[in-house]
């Protein structure tokens, strides 16, 4: 039996009078790979902010790892890479290693410094994303795709049970995108990581995900482990939507 890691039960949320999510219910189980799609402003990021406790639902309940209360302990089990993560100060004096080491901080008590064990985990996370050779480079000197991988390594260094990625490939070239999807596949299959990926590139993620979540005020979840049908997509984008987005170069 699969354990539920995230549960939404009739959750509604509004920004002021603007209803953003209406009576949302779904659960994410261990080892699931959820792809979240939907139009801009449809509530995808709001959904993630509710999971992380940045926002509180107007009604309904959210459980993380079976508990309704959002604790630091629960948040430590979630590795989150935000849409805005690469909007940092490029002049910031931090090396790749220092950035990834932040992933270990929440697991350390105030007095504790990073141990050899922590350093090994950090190097492993860098190896997983193929960035170990860059560990002494300054983060601001890397390309967008490389920075993105470093931030995923930071999330991995926290040894999460769930990885949440919000539009991680904005501004990343096609070649890096392919490598990135391969990485996610390995993490999900080999490391048994539960992954929630917000993306508008349905065509790319369709081969990886187990469940497709359409978010447009209402939320519908489709089991797509056997492929995606046209009706799976119209739920998010309406009937005007008639093609899977794909790239022509």
């Amino acid at each position: 039996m699969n354990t539920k890691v995230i549960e939404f039960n009739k959750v509604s949320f509004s920004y002021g009078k603007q209803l953003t999510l209406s009576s949302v219910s779904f659960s994410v189980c261990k080892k699931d790979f959820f792809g979240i799609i939907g139009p801009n402003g449809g509530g995808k990021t709001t959904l993630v902010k509710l999971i992380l406790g940045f926002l509180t639902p107007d009604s309904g309940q959210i459980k993380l790892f079976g508990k309704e209360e959002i604790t630091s302990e629960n948040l430590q089990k979630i590795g989150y890479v935000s849409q805005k993560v690469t909007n940092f100060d490029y002049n910031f004096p931090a090396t790749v290693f220092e950035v990834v080491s932040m992933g270990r901080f929440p697991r350390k008590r105030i007095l504790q410094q990073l141990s050899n064990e922590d350093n090994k985990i950090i190097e492993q996370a860098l190896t997983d994303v193929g960035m170990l050779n860059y560990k002494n480079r300054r983060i601001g000197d890397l390309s967008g795709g490389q920075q993105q991988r470093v931030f995923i390594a930071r999330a991995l260094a926290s040894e999460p049970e769930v990885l949440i990625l919000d539009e991680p490939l904005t501004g990343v070239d096609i070649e890096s995108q392919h490598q990135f999807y391969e990485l996610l596949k390995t993490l999900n299959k080999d490391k048994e990581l539960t992954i929630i990926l917000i993306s508008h590139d349905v065509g790319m993620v369709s081969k990886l995900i187990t469940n497709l979540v359409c978010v447009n005020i209402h939320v519908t979840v489709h089991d797509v482990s056997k492929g995606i049908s046209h009706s799976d997509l119209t739920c998010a984008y309406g009937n005007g939507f008639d093609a899977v987005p794909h790239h022509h170069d």
Partner: protein
Amino acid sequence: MLELFQFVFMQRAFIAGILIAVLCSTIGLFIVLKRMALLGDGLAHISFGGIAAGMLFGINTLISALIFSILGAVGIQKLKKMKIYSDSAIAIFFSFGLALGVILVSLSRGFNSDLMSYLFGSILSVNISDIIIILIAGFAVLLTLFLFYKELFYITFDEASAKAAGIKVGRVNTLLIVLTAIIVVLSMRIVGILLVSSLLVIPASTALMFKRSFKQTLILSTIISALAVIIGLIAAYYLNLAAGGAIVMILIGIFLGVFFLSKH
């Protein structure tokens, strides 16, 4: 051997100056990277109200300044939470402290030389009790910085991710600003209210131009700051200059030197 080290007042000036330099440059890097360079200046002006109050009511001015500075720091944080822009929050408290100070000074029948020494610093008149206070408070602040280094580093780089990772961002921010308030008051003896922000901002800004790791930048910032205090004090002694002003001029000289070298 340099004759200036024979004088007790110079020995004290070097001890106090170097310790303050280390404190200011360390916390200064966090402040500069968080775009709060004027926080130190704001807190120093708030402390002015505290110094004036201390003088009027006969309380130890270091303590009254400390109370004002810490309350101001907490107040700035509260205003920020209520969606007042950070620089506006600093400006509001800045004006309040200065206005209160001016009123209290006028009540105590005008300026006196003590007040001037707070405005422009008086490192050469640092006495043994000042040294003890700076040593104890200084080491307490450094220890706290060391203990919360991880959290401070994380929130300075990226508050949103730190929050998502379960770090109490609000509390760590308050800690940073309260530590700054303490350091500002300790530093006023050295360079004075009007020049306090120089020790916080210039060493960090200079060190950043070397484009190194965070830890290396922190160390560079400390070295630059200590060097400026030593050279500044020696220059002040031999050329008979105001010590606070000389230290700041050396800092600016180092900044300009590194700036032009890094451009070539």
